[in-house]
């Protein structure tokens, strides 16, 4: 029993896509699809050559925000979307009827349809691939070259993520929606 979250030191991101490829290899994500579990958001630079505003561009790694109050779970008519014991928002593909309500409810566009199974898929913190097999972290965290991610148990006050969140300023995405994401962007 834990309450898993992730802190992202996103200023270190170089958009190398190591996280995306590690996720695909680890979780057997379909190649060639428009959408998959994690991605890096690119904010295009503002200005006109040669006067570009460096501060206007950024790379922001993203994935399911693992909300404590997940709109996707709320709208799911079959309970295919559920919170597991570690607070991870998961999808049970056997129960998914592809109504796509969850996709429309998710304010982070973190869900997509896996064209093989015709069910909705999303990041689950590698729960079924790594965590349940004794690994202590996600594939994206482990592989990241500039070490953007800190994964850990938010309920454990001694965990590194808890310590970091205590010590450093951070924000969550679309906080005003009250979704209570467990992905924290360190500023």
């Amino acid at each position, binding site marked *: 029993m834990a309450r898993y979250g992730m802190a992202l030191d996103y200023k270190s991101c170089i958009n190398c896509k190591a996280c995306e490829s590690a996720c695909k290899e680890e979780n057997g994500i379909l190649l060639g699809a428009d959408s998959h579990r994690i991605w890096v958001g690119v904010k295009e630079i503002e200005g006109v050559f040669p006067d570009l505003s460096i501060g206007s561009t950024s790379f922001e790694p993203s994935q399911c925000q693992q909300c404590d109050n997940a709109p996707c779970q709320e709208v799911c008519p079959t309970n295919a979307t559920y919170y597991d014991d570690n607070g991870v928002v998961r999808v049970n593909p056997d129960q998914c009827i592809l109504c796509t309500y969850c996709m429309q409810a998710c304010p982070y566009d973190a869900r997509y349809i896996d064209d093989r199974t015709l069910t909705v898929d999303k990041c689950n913190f590698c729960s079924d691939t790594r965590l349940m097999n004794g690994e202590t972290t996600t594939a994206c965290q482990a592989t990241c*070259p500039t070490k953007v991610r800190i994964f850990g148990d938010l309920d454990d006050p001694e965990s590194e993520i808890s310590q970091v969140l205590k010590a450093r300023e951070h924000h969550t995405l679309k906080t005003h929606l009250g979704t209570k994401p467990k992905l924290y962007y360190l500023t």
Partner: protein
Amino acid sequence: MKTEISRRRFLQGSAALTIVGVSGAASSLIESEEKAKISDYGLNKTQWSDKLQEISTLCEMCVNKCAAIARVENGVLTKLNPNPLFPKSRNMLCARGNAGIQALDDPDRLKYPLIRAGERGEGKFTRVTWDEAYEYIKDKMVKILDEEKDNRSAIGCCAGEGMAEHTYTSFMQGKIGTANFVNHSSICLATTIGGYTLTLGGYGQADLENAEYVIMAGANRAEAIVTPDTMDLFKRTKGRGAKLVVVDPRFTNTASHADTWLPIEVGTDLAFVLALTYVALTDESYNKKFAKENMSDFETYKEHVISNNYTPEWAEDITGIKAEEIRKVSRDFMAHAPRAIYYQGRRTAWSLQDYQLRRAQAIFSAMGGGIDIKGGIIFGKTLPLGEHRTNSPIYDNAEVRIEKGKAALIGGSGSWIAWRNTIIDGTAPYPVRAFFAYKQNPMLSVPNTAKTKQMLEKMDLVVVIDTMPSDTVMMADVVLPESVYLEREDPVKTFGGAEPSIALRKKVVDAKYDTKPVIEIMRGLGEKLSKPLFEISKKYDESLQEELEGLTEEEVLEYYNENGYDLADGYRHSQETINHHMVASVYGEEAWKTLREKGVFYPDMDKYFKKKSVNAYQYYPEHKKSYSMIEGQLINEPYHDTCVDTKEISVLKKEFRTATKKVACVLSNLEKKKGVPSMPVWNDELYTPTPKGKFKFITGRHGQFTQSATANNALLIDLLSENYLWINKRIAKEKDIELGDMVEVESSIGKIQIKAYPTEKIGPNVLFFVHGFGAESSELTLAHQRGVNDNLIIEDQYENTFGSAAMHETIVNLRRV
């Protein structure tokens, strides 16, 4: 079934949905039929059975050699994870490292030896046994060397970078005895390695973990990943300890981490550095103590720069960078020195003045005192390995390399362009009739593809050793399939630096097909060729004839064995046996055991290595790191980049570095002997201005491909599906070019068509697309005609010091198709 909801990948408010990925691939433009192909490529999922093994190895998806742990289950590789023990790779695997599984599982791999069946280049091959392949090679080699009277240099060869490169070159250069070897150096880092070596005594390593001020010009460490530089730097940019100035005609991912981005006119970096130097000299802001103690002929150089009036105003006209910016950068650099670095760069095959540029950078860095010191350019320590030597015969009739006089300092790794052009333009002093390629794809990697093809067509024999059916493989007579890195053990390697270590690439799965590692291929070839080639030497080599005169048959055999004519003798032991000797003979059996089990070894690793946090590890305690090793006196053989032939460097230094223990500001010897200016000087005649209405074409890398070598990798294509032409938005608008429109780019040597990516991230007189795409080989299912090959338009110019390619001197026209 497709979802109708667009991906909201732009987290900050309502940022426009434009391009995903700085390299210019637009996700919206990917055609669905292509994607159907990629989706056929499966990813192995771990089953987590009790058969699961974790095996340490080293990655070979690029040149960095990061430490990996392979998850193998029932003989199937299911995941590659970073091995935290290796100081150089800092507990990471990039996108390519993760995609190593695809390199193993790619159905298009070369699976068994092949002999050409149709016309050369037609791509028709017959499967043969290894012995049949060797036999074919032997017959041709015997004929060629008989007709060329044992001039071993009639056999040409090339290699790409790799841990087994030396195994291959020891055979081709040592055993076969050819002088005609060319490698990646002259299309990559020859000028910077040469420039820094001649100036500082070594290329060194930029200590980006501790530098406070970094000028990164042209180098793009966010996309062209180099370890540990990439990981060290970008954790400290954006106000977190390292100020970063990026000087680049393009706004790269590296520039997005910069404090200052200076878009420079292509090919004018030397003027920029000379002006930085001028400012520091006239300000007298340089480190006077260091200059006095450690820089030879400093006053001469000072006088040279000042009397030539390399002022910021002068440089502004040339570089397009404002004089005030130049002053500021110079002053900031010196204010932060010695923890200030003008980053050396790697693929520095840019301009005709590249060598003097690297010299000027090295001297400017030294003026801050940031040499052999924490936060500067360090040389560190290298852990020695035991020796493994091969015994090579001496061939009297082997001629010197054909392009010898085409540039001032053509060394053992040659000048690719000059060498190739010498073969096809009829100026070669003797014919080169056979060509062996290992792990290099010159059809796509050397400027002017048409000429490379012409060169290959002239050959009586083309042998290619590789893992994938590249465009160069398509030109082969004999194809010898190499096992991929995950299927073989390679020569153990030592990695120098502040935190030196030894690392091992070990086999993680059995070879899937009838392939071999290079050492076994050399063994097989050696066994086949030894006796017949010895007979040829006996026929034409007068020294050998004298040696053998009057000897009995038994004595001849003894002579043959003792003098290395048994071409397989250095390759009979297994790689594991050789590695064992090289490690255990120096560090003992325990060290060998540790290395095999953990993939990494250095003395006291068990004591020093500690997990500091979720992401960070300690390799050495701070006081045990090797920052300052030479204390003002540059040692003779410091650590070099892993891609460097250290023997060649030694020769260069021996011949031309007069003040071997100091920073050499003036290289009089080089000027006297070779006519290369003794000090960095801006030469207008070597600068190509861009005429109005035309563009200079530049090329570069991105973080998901390694040149053309990974072009067929499904996982990587999924990240970046093709290359796009960067074109300034205003120019695009003038020409009515929109995102995805097909445009034609034409240079003096060829024209290509490519999709456009209008952007503000490039200037109005420059065009760019990334290298690595555009394979023609029909055997590459995914890479075939995907994107465009830059070397169809890059002119084959080279600079005159090392004969290094000048890839950014090509003027092109652009039109909408």
